[in-house]
């Protein structure tokens, strides 16, 4: 907002070079944008960053010099910026509203209380209950008549095995935690396939628990869903 000089004709003549240089700058920047897309040297996120930066530079160049904001009173800049700021906020608001909300289709926690049985095929990692204790198979085998005969194939575990299972639509972060301090549990992971997150996990808990003892929180971009 430097205002006009005393010789307006000379001032206008000087602007010719400003306009010409700016025009060359705009053409060069646009050329760089196109070359970056053609050579495909950078990752997608870098390309978006570069395009954003070059667009902002060109935008500022045009409004500041071509549209005379540099020489005009500041009210014009304020008027335009008001609209621009509202537009930017509108842009992010609409983008935010358009994000996909995560949906928890299924979440269950069940205790594994299968009693050991004779003459049964067990896979490595299977859990069984004998009395008040829990054991885990260290290798695949078929059980004998008595547990004592296969004792070397089983490892006693501390805690009660529970199976957590979930099915979620659209998630980039999943958190599961226990609501009972005496039965601590926390699991957080970031699924690679964000569209459909489906899985199970067996964990050892200090006490027997049900689904209601846990909370699952799922995030997709800006949105959190929990139950």
């Amino acid at each position, binding site marked *: 907002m430097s205002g006009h000089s005393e010789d307006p004709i000379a001032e206008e003549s000087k602007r010719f070079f400003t306009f010409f240089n700016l025009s060359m700058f705009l053409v060069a920047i646009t050329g760089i944008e196109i070359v970056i897309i053609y050579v495909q040297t950078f990752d997608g996120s870098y390309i978006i960053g570069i395009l954003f930066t070059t667009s902002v530079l060109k935008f500022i160049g045009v409004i500041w010099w071509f549209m005379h904001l540099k020489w005009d009173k500041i*009210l014009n800049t304020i008027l335009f910026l008001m609209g621009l700021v509202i537009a930017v906020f509108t842009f992010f608001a*609409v983008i935010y509203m358009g994000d996909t909300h995560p949906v928890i289709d299924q979440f269950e926690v069940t205790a594994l209380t299968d009693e050991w049985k004779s003459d049964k095929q067990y896979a490595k990692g299977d859990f069984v209950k004998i009395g008040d204790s829990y054991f885990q198979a260290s290798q695949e085998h078929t059980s004998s008549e008595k547990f004592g005969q296969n004792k070397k194939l089983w490892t006693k575990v501390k805690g009660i095995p529970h199976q957590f299972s979930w099915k979620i639509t659209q998630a980039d972060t999943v958190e599961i935690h226990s609501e009972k301090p005496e039965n601590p549990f926390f699991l957080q992971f970031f699924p690679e396939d964000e569209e459909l997150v489906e899985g199970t996990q067996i964990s050892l808990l200090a006490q027997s628990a049900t689904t209601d003892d846990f909370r699952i929180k799922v995030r997709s971009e800006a949105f959190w869903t929990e139950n």
Partner: protein
Amino acid sequence: MSEAAAHSLEHHEPETSTGIPNKKVLMWAFLGSDCMFFGTLISTHLIYRKISATVGSNYLDIRNVFDIELTSFSTFILLASSLFMALAVSAIHKGNLTSTRWMLLGTIVFGAIFLACQVYEFTHFVHMPGNELTLSSYRGEPHVFGSTFYVLTGTHGTHVAIGVFWLLGWLVYSFTGKMSVADALDVECCGLYWHFVDIVWIIIFPVVYLMEYAF
């Protein structure tokens, strides 16, 4: 540039409380509101591009449809037209009618070339064998991409067309013998509108076209 021109540069609009001619304030307020208009159109396009990224079970690869060389060319044309427009405003401020006419003509021609490229592009997209992109479908299957794309770029094209007719009006007026430096403010408002159309394209080109090639 004569004394007459220098004298005419001193021509003042009626004084206003803001110190800025009312027409200019009005134009800037309009451009601010138009920012919001294009802001919603661009964000709508981006959202639907994201949530409707597939056609059937296949990813919508719109690069099969776009002709980036042609769009790059029309982008350079529109940028060049902005230089002509800035020089036209500068010329009318100096009272140089001949130069104003040539610069207005340059802006009009370049604006018309941009429009011709867009008309060709739209026609080409709609009738591209095997990759037809219509307002409501892609390759014959219902899809929203065409709606947001044509509405956004078509609205911009309509703005360009309005600008071309406005400039054409000034060019014709310049031959009536009535045009003088007293019209500089009106030509400047027309120039503001034209540059705005340019900055909207500065956003649309990378966001709608180039980003398709980023991944």
